[in-house]
């Protein structure tokens, strides 16, 4: 019996909900527009602030974002790193993968020729405190510095002999292997495509000029 009146009363019953939906939607979008620039900058800074650690002599204000299609067909953003003089110093690529406990997110620094690893930084991890979380320490990260990119890295438990061997952290072999595995996969996927964006030539000029433009755009 209540069918017909119910459907006619629908707006009458739900006007408050619809009004609130409009109001809240508008309010949220306003908050978003007010804060999004700041949040984006926070996110950007997270990567940019560690670029000088990853590639020696880099000037973070001169870093350019480059879109690259990896071997697996997915588009990725990598960073072309320049020094303050505008000379190409290397590359920074983000990578992530399953660690011992949870996702590990890292940044890998490469030299300009993509032949050796220039540095490593761990952005996020939840490895075991007191064991696996030492992957964030400088001691472990430096073990990657200067390693070649042409051969996959191998984790060993005693002193490394070959130059592609990485000494594992005591009691955290799996965490160490996870990190080197992430590095290996990222390099296998991106090494080729990045090399094709050869440093030098006209392309670099375009890229070199873009940071200034982008800075202007994202500024508040």
């Amino acid at each position, binding site marked *: 019996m209540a069918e017909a009146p119910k459907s006619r009363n629908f707006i009458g019953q739900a006007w408050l*909900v619809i009004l609130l939906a409009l109001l809240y939607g508008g309010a949220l979008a306003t908050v978003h527009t007010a804060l999004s620039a700041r949040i984006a900058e926070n996110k950007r800074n997270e990567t940019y602030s560690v670029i000088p650690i990853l590639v020696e002599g880099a000037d973070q204000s001169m870093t350019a974002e480059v879109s690259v299609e990896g071997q697996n067909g997915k588009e990725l953003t990598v960073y072309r790193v320049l020094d303050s003089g505008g000379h190409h110093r290397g590359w920074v690529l983000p990578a992530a993968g399953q660690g011992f406990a949870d996702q590990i997110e890292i940044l890998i620094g490469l030299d300009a020729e993509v032949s050796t690893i220039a540095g490593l930084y761990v952005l996020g991890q939840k490895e*075991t405190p007191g064991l696996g979380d030492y992957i964030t320490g400088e001691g472990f990260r430096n073990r990657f510095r200067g390693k070649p990119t042409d051969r996959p890295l191998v984790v060993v438990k005693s002193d490394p002999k070959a130059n592609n061997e990485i000494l594992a952290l005591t009691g955290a072999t799996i965490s160490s292997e996870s990190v080197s595995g992430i590095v290996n996969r990222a390099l296998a996927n991106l090494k080729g495509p990045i090399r094709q964006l050869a440093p030098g030539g006209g392309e670099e000029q375009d890229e070199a000029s873009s940071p200034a433009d982008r800075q202007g755009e994202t500024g508040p």
Partner: protein
Amino acid sequence: MTRGEPTALERFINGILPENPVYRQLLGMCPVLAVTNGMKPAMTMAGATAFVLILANIMISLMRGLLKPHLRILVFTLTIATFVTIADRLLAAYMYEMSKQLGPYVPLIIVNCLIISRCEICASKQDVRVAVADGVGMSLGFALALASIATVREILGSGTWLGLPVMPGFWPNWGIMVLPPGAFLTLGLLLGMVEWVNQARAKKAGKRE
């Protein structure tokens, strides 16, 4: 209605200890367990929850005359979700590190039973003054509970409190305390302690009679 609704002062005091949302009502367990591995994230969480709870209480209390019984839960949820989003964005803009550490637990405030139950019990029935008092009281109670658990976990697990070292150098950090099992164990034991004190007091009061 045989009983009058509690006054603002009663609501305020109730929230802190007699009706403590965590220890007495077992509401909002998810953040209580997840973000208490240190004092800083715990306090940020308490702040975010307080922000949402107080503002949602005010908002609901202001429109309590317009609420239709069968749509009220929907309105509560919409209001809470909006304020949670605002809190989340504010954290991301001004406390980025913290926001990253808290991760999904800030949006999960939406499904914290504590807030919806306060909207239902208090804000949808009483005026703004009482609703604010209730929100502040409950938030303080929630903060107190988070602080107690975080204190135990951070001191035992990392040897620090609010990031400041408090344990002697030879203290072996109990790694388990900052891991998930530590959260369950600490809360279980603290709950038992609170219950023990309560029972002891009830027994005493009973004897005095």
